[in-house]
C-alpha cells in the first residue's frame, strides 16, 4: 500500500520541479535586462522606424538588433512607458504629449551632440519649448504635417486661399468635415483669429461652428473614407491632413490640391525621445540620428509617402515635384501655422461638449 503511494509520489515531484524550472525560466526571460546588442523602439505600426530596409541597414552598421513594439493611442504609449521602465530605448511621441511624459518621469534628457544631423533640423521645430523643458532636450523633431483643407481641382477652378472658403455660401452643401471635437474647435478658433489650442472666446468658436450648418454635406473619419467620399462626389472641399492629401494624389490619382489658408492652419510635429533607464542609450542616439538623416527620409517618402521631415536638408533632396516640397516647402506658409499644444482633460471635455451641441443644432 505504502509502496504504491511512494511510487505515485515520484511523478508528482517531477511535475512540481518542472513547473518551478519553467517559472524560473519565464521569470528570467521576462525580467532580464535587454541584451547589449538590442535596441527597443516603441512607435505606431508602419510609421517609418519599422521600414524593413532601414532596420536592416541600421543593424548592419551598428551591430545591434532593432526590435519594435507598437501602440494604438498616446494613452497606450504612456501606459507602456509607465509600466515597463528599462524596456524601451527609442519612443515616438507627438510633441503635444512630450511635456506630460517628462512630468511623469518616463523620459531621459537627450545629448544633442550625439545626434547626427541635429544642426540641419529646422530651428522652429528643433528648439520648440515642447521638446526643450527646463533647459534640457527631451525630444528630437522628426516629422511634421498640417491639418487644413483640400479641394477638387476638377470642380473648383480658382485655388482658394482663405479658411473662409469653408464658410462660403457658394459651396453650401459641398463641404466635408472631420467629426472631431478638438480639430473643429481649432479650425473655428483660427477662423476667428484666436489661439487655436486655448481660444479665449469660446462663444465666438461656438457661433462660427454653428454657421457651418448649411455648408457640411457629411462627416468623415478616416483617410480611406475621405477618398471614397471624394471619388463619389459627396464633397468638393473637405478638411484634410497634408500627408493623406499627398497619398490621395500620388497613390490614388485623385484631383486633390491642399491649401494652407492665409489665416493659418493646424500644425503638428512628432519627436523621437529616449526612455528613462534605456538599456542601450548609445544605440538610441545613433538610431535617432539615422532617422532624421536625408538618407532615410528621402527613400521613405519616395517609396511609401511620409509626412514632411523636420530636417530641411532632407526635404530639399526630394524630387522637385514632391508634395512635401511643393506644398509644405513654402516658408511663408509655415510661418502661419499654429502648433498643437497639450490640452487638459477639462479642455477636451469642454470642446467635445461644444462640438456635440453644435452637431445637435446641425441635425435640427
Amino acid at each position, binding site marked *: 500500500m505504502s509502496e504504491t503511494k511512494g511510487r505515485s509520489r515520484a511523478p508528482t515531484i517531477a511535475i512540481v520541479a518542472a513547473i518551478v524550472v519553467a517559472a524560473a525560466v519565464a521569470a528570467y526571460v521576462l525580467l532580464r535586462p535587454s541584451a547589449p546588442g538590442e535596441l527597443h523602439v516603441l512607435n505606431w505600426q508602419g510609421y517609418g522606424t519599422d521600414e524593413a530596409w532601414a532596420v536592416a541597414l541600421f543593424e548592419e552598421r551598428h551591430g545591434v538588433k532593432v526590435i519594435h513594439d507598437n501602440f494604438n493611442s498616446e494613452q497606450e504609449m504612456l501606459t507602456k512607458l509607465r509600466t515597463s521602465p528599462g524596456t524601451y530605448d527609442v519612443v515616438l511621441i507627438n510633441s503635444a504629449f512630450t511635456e506630460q511624459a517628462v512630468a511623469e518621469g518616463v523620459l531621459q534628457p537627450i545629448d544633442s551632440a550625439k545626434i547626427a544631423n541635429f544642426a540641419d533640423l529646422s530651428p522652429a521645430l528643433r528648439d520648440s519649448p515642447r521638446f526643450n523643458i527646463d533647459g534640457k532636450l527631451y525630444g528630437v523633431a522628426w516629422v511634421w504635417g498640417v491639418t487644413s483643407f483640400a479641394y477638387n481641382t476638377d470642380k473648383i477652378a480658382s485655388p482658394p486661399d482663405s479658411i473662409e472658403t469653408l464658410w462660403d455660401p457658394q459651396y453650401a452643401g459641398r463641404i466635408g468635415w472631420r467629426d472631431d471635437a478638438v480639430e473643429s474647435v481649432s479650425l473655428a478658433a483660427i477662423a476667428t483669429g484666436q489661439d487655436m489650442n486655448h481660444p479665449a472666446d469660446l462663444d465666438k468658436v461656438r457661433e462660427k461652428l454653428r454657421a457651418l450648418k448649411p455648408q457640411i454635406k457629411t462627416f468623415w473619419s478616416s483617410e480611406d473614407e475621405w477618398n471614397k467620399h471624394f471619388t463619389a462626389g459627396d464633397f468638393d472641399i473637405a478638411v484634410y491632413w497634408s500627408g493623406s492629401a499627398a497619398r490621395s494624389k500620388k497613390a490614388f490619382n485623385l484631383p486633390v490640391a491642399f491649401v494652407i489658408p492665409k489665416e493659418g492652419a493646424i500644425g503638428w510635429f512628432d519627436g523621437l525621445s529616449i526612455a528613462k533607464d534605456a538599456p542601450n542609450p548609445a544605440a538610441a542616439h545613433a538610431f535617432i540620428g539615422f532617422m532624421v538623416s536625408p538618407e532615410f527620409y528621402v527613400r521613405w517618402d519616395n517609396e511609401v509617402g511620409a509626412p514632411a521631415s523636420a530636417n530641411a536638408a532632407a526635404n530639399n533632396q526630394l524630387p522637385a515635384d514632391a508634395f512635401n516640397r511643393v506644398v509644405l516647402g513654402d516658408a511663408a506658409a509655415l510661418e502661419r501655422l499654429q502648433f498643437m499644444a497639450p490640452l487638459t482633460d477639462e479642455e477636451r471635455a469642454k470642446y467635445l461638449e461644444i462640438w456635440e451641441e453644435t452637431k445637435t443644432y446641425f*441635425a435640427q
Partner: protein
Amino acid sequence: MNLVRRRRLAVFGLTAPAYLWLALTILLPLSAMLFFSFLTQAPFGGRQAELTLGQYGAFLDKAFYRTLAWRSLELGFYVTLGCVAIGYPAALALAKYVKGRWREALFLLIVLPFWSNALVRTFSWTMVLRGDGLVDRMVQAVFPGAPSFGLLFTYPAIVVGLVHSFVPYMILTCYISLQAIDDSLIEAARSLGASAWAVFRRVVLPLSLPGLYAGVVLIFVPAIGSFMEPRILGGPAGIMLGTVIEDQFTVVFNWPLGAALSFILLAIVLAILALAYPLLRRNLQVA
C-alpha cells in the same frame, strides 16, 4: 414532501447556470457603470475620483442633451412604425396565404440578413442610397429627366437602415402569433357573414396582438440606443444620444458622463414600458 423538494432542487439546478451567467455578464458590469456615473472622472491610471451628481446635472443643465434624448425616442418611434408597416403584412401573408416550400424559402430570405455582419449591411446601404447610387439610377431609368436625389446622409436614410436591420424580429414574432390562430375561427366568422375586413379587425388582429407587442418592444428599445447606423448613414443628421454616449467612452475617456447618459436613457425606456405595462400584460398573457 420529498418530491416537492426534489422538484425545487431540479428547478434550482436547471436555472442556476442561467442566473449565474446573467449576474456575471450583465448585473456586475451594469453595477460598475452605475457606480461610475456618480464619479467625477474614470478611476484609472491613478486618477482620484470623487462622488458627484454632476454627470446627471449636465443632462438637466444643457438643453441639447434633452433634444438628443427626444431625437433618439423619435427615431425609435419611426423605426418601429416602419417595421410594423412592413413586418405585419409580411407575417400575415406567410402565416395564412403561403404554404409549403414557398414558406420555407421566404423564411430563409427573411432570416438571411441576420447572418451577415451589421456593419457590412449598413455600408451596402450607403451604395444604394447615395446620389447617383442604385436607387437614383433606377428612378432615372424609369423616368428619364427626373431630378437626381440622394437619401444618404439624411434622416430617412437612418430609418431605412434601421428598419432593414430590425424588421425580421417583427416578422418572426407576428408570424408565431398569427400561425397559432385556428383557421376554423376565421371560417366561422366568414360563415356568419363577416366581411374580410371585419374578420381581420375583430378576429385576426386581436389574436395576433401579443406577437405585435413583443415585436414593438424588441425593436423600440435597441433602436433608440443605436449609434452605428446613425453615424454611417446619417452624416450631419446622425447625432443621437447613442452616438454621444459612444463619444464619451471612446473619444474623451469620460466614462462617468457616458454612463450617466446611458442610465438616463435606460430610465426613459423603463418609464415608457411602465406606462405601457397594463396594455402589455393583458396581451402578453395570452401568449
